[in-house]
């Protein structure tokens, strides 16, 4: 009984400290975050698989899966994941329709955009699935997470 009370006391002390520091801290975290609209949650709800950094690193090294940059072409030229191809979300339907060499429907692909607060990567993944591609993943952290992890960036077309 004493042990349980001690554990409870430690838990309450920790919770009290956490709440107090969070309240006192400038820019403290709100107790309820808007995760429902977070891009990763939307992907999760739609059963779009998420690629982590390890998957993306492997893709950069091996050249597969196909990395697709969903941002506008100007942003792609300013810097993109090594080996990625530009497929801006807004232009994707026409670009996919005008492909000279069709991409196999089961080709593994990873879409991404700037950071985890952009949604072009998700929209592109959704579009690719709608037109019949079956192996589409989303790298939700995007170029921002790649850079933060020390990843090299390629420039140009």
């Amino acid at each position, binding site marked *: 009984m004493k042990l349980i009370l001690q554990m409870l006391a430690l838990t309450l002390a920790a919770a009290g400290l956490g709440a107090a520091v969070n309240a006192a801290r400038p820019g403290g975290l709100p107790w309820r*975050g808007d*995760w429902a609209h977070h891009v990763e949650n939307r992907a999760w709800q739609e059963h779009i698989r998420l*690629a982590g950094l*390890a998957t993306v690193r492997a893709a950069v090294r091996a050249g597969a899966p196909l990395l697709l940059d969903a941002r506008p072409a100007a942003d792609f030229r300013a810097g993109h994941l090594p080996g990625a191809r530009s497929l801006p979300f807004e232009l994707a339907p026409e670009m996919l329709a005008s492909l000279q060499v069709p991409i196999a429907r089961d080709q593994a692909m990873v879409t991404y955009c700037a950071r985890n607060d952009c949604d072009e990567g998700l929209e592109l993944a959704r579009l690719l699935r709608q037109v019949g591609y079956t192996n589409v993943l989303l790298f939700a952290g995007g170029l921002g*997470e790649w850079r933060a992890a020390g990843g090299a960036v390629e420039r140009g077309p």
Partner: protein
Amino acid sequence: MTRRWLPLLSRWLLGLLFLAASLPKLAAPPDLALAIFRYHLLPLGLVNAAAILLPWFELTAAAALLLAPPLRRAAALLLLALLAVFTAAIAIDLHRGIDIACGCFSLKPGIGRASAWSLLRNAALMTLAVLAAWTPANKKPCPA
């Protein structure tokens, strides 16, 4: 002799490890919230609350383990409970095939991917917690 130093060593190792683990989480609650969210295990409404409180559970229990002898056993058992929860979370996500960062000792992108190795490490830490909770000095003497 072993009965004396093994719990002591376990307490110090575990205490210092959890102290080190809590610091990056205390420094960056939004990053911790994202790491917790990426496990897709907690209801979304609890993600931020977990990010606010979790590092303090780690820090308080680690501090009690190192500095408060009367609370050592409770602190070790609290850390054991935390480790059990973390291990279950990693195991579930590995089983679901989710590629995530562990978020255990660092929140920097690309560091500490959750893997079978994380499970082994946690099993070792849980053993330490059990040893740290073991207090032979407080045991009643055996009848002769």
